[in-house]
């Protein structure tokens, strides 16, 4: 059933002699990724740095990242899942349909060559970007890449890492996991954590109009989410905690200005590889931190007579 085979970025820096960037444009979106962690750095076991590494870029268009690559594979939009799955078969020496492979924009020969290079690697890594995880197929595109990397370990050392979005996405994921057991799409409405992406994930809830209030923290959905979701946010009482005015704060019923985390508020940010980094406030802020505000809201809510803890679970609901 595959799984997730990954590592911290230092492992890549010190060991990776082969890397695939898939569905991302690191040169522009994660500029320091190349220089700090992966490509150009001299590593403990890759003393020649860039010369010691092979980089493959898989993307739908020739971005500036392509220049940095030793091999650029241009794939037709929306064909990542097909390509990754065909590659899984080819890596194992199982048959694929040449004509249907070519619908991905690549030939069997190209995939065979890639498979051979991957097997020759001493330490291989695949980074995949949102060009993969946010296009048609979503989590299954990611799943295909993760499974490919896992299965490669039957031949050589191989790991895989998603290039997460901006902000502390990983941090939210990490904290939700240890407090609720699930990374995202969690509902606490029945008094205990439940997980069901698509049912409880934010965009889906808003698009279906399943919520009658919203508290927005460290995000600006008003700028990024689909219009129906934004429309619902403006229909319901929406509360925004944000140091600055945002698209969301403009449509919100309430905007509480908070101290900018990392600048005026301490905390922890998690790198895409889940390495925690402490944030030390540099400047004082007249505004409360997000944490202060949330604590005070919770206390106020708990003090309300109407607040009652949920009764017993009538059934274990998935």
């Amino acid at each position, binding site marked *: *059933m595959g799984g997730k085979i990954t590592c911290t970025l230092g492992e890549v820096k010190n060991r990776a002699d082969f890397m695939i960037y898939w569905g991302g444009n690191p040169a522009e979106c994660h500029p320091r990724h190349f220089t700090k962690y992966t490509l150009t750095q001299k590593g403990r076991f890759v003393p020649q740095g860039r010369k010691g590494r092979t980089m493959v870029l898989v993307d739908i268009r020739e971005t500036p990242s392509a220049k940095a690559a030793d091999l650029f594979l241009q794939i037709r939009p929306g064909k990542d*899942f*097909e390509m990754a*799955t*065909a590659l*899984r*078969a080819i890596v*194992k020496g*199982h*048959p*694929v*349909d040449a004509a*249907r*492979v070519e*619908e*991905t924009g690549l030939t069997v020969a190209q995939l065979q060559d890639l498979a051979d290079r991957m097997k020759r690697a001493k330490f291989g890594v695949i980074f995949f970007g949102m060009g993969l995880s946010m296009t*048609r*197929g979503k989590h*299954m595109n990611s799943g295909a890449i993760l499974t490919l990397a896992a299965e490669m370990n039957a031949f050589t050392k191989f790991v895989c890492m998603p290039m997460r979005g901006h902000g502390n996405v990983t941090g939210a994921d990490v904290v939700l996991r240890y407090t609720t057991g699930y990374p995202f799409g969690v509902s*606490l*409405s*029945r*008094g205990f954590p439940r*997980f*069901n*992406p*698509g*049912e409880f994930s934010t965009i889906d809830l808003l698009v279906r109009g*399943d*919520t*009658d209030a919203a508290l927005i923290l460290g995000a600006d959905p008003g700028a990024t989410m689909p219009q129906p979701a934004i429309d619902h946010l403006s229909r319901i009482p929406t509360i925004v905690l944000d140091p600055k005015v945002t698209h969301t704060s403009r449509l919100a019923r309430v905007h509480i200005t908070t101290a900018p985390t990392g600048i005026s508020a301490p905390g922890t940010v998690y790198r895409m590889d889940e390495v925690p980094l402490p944030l030390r406030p540099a400047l004082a802020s007249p505004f409360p931190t997000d944490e202060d505000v949330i604590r005070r809201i919770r206390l106020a809510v708990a003090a309300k007579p109407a607040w009652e803890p*949920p*009764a017993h679970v*009538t*059934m274990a*609901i*998935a």
Partner: protein
Amino acid sequence: MITLTLKELPSVPLEAEVLSPDVTAGLSNDAIRALPVYLGKRQRRIDDFFDVDGSSSDQITIQGDAARVKWIGRAMTRGHIRITGNTGMHLGAYMSGGTIEVSGNGADWVGAEMSGGLIRIDGNAGGQIGAAYRGSSTGMRDGTILIGGSAGLEVGMRMKRGVIAIGGPVRDFAGLQMKGGTIILASGAELRTGAWMMRGTIISLRPLPLMPTFAYAATYLPDVLRIYAAYLRGLGFTLPFDQQQGAYQRYTGDTSVPGKGEILIWNPRGA
């Protein structure tokens, strides 16, 4: 027969797993009125939302637009639920027996991880029909799901046994990681049908775009389809198998797994 009439559409989803013959059978109407349901985080009573009529029975009729009512028929083992109108997510999830009929539309997770019984929806349904919940290794274990209209993503994901037949068009990943059972797509499906399937049968009566990891085997009429045709005819669903009309193209895969699954695509004579 117990009849529940929805007073109005709840403002947020209402979780009502108590709407199951196993729960209502043998309860007085007052006891049914007092059963707990959950509106968001608040516990409420059935009669806050439904008028309850009729008399104690394992036959339940639900009237009104229950599109926001989740978990109807959850884990039911017997009896009959008839919904005149729409229904919310998780209809008949985990059910092992009995029958659910819906005259309107269903939502996601219809019959998820069910192990027996029959669900019939006349209108459209959402995604993950008869599927495995996230992380589970196995979806639908047996039983039958019939959808008159269209369906969404990941129909029959990781299903192991049973039959899912869908009249209208189906979206991506039908039969994803399928382990067994049969999916019938009367109007075909979009992309990645049968992706990563290990075992099982996907029958499409319309041409399908196939993954590169499926290999053509033969064009023929599998005798086993005659059994399915007979079974489905009893449920008002026609599966062609007359050689005068055409034959099925058999593709096997998914070779990336590697899987022993099959996709059978109906190829009308002269087409």
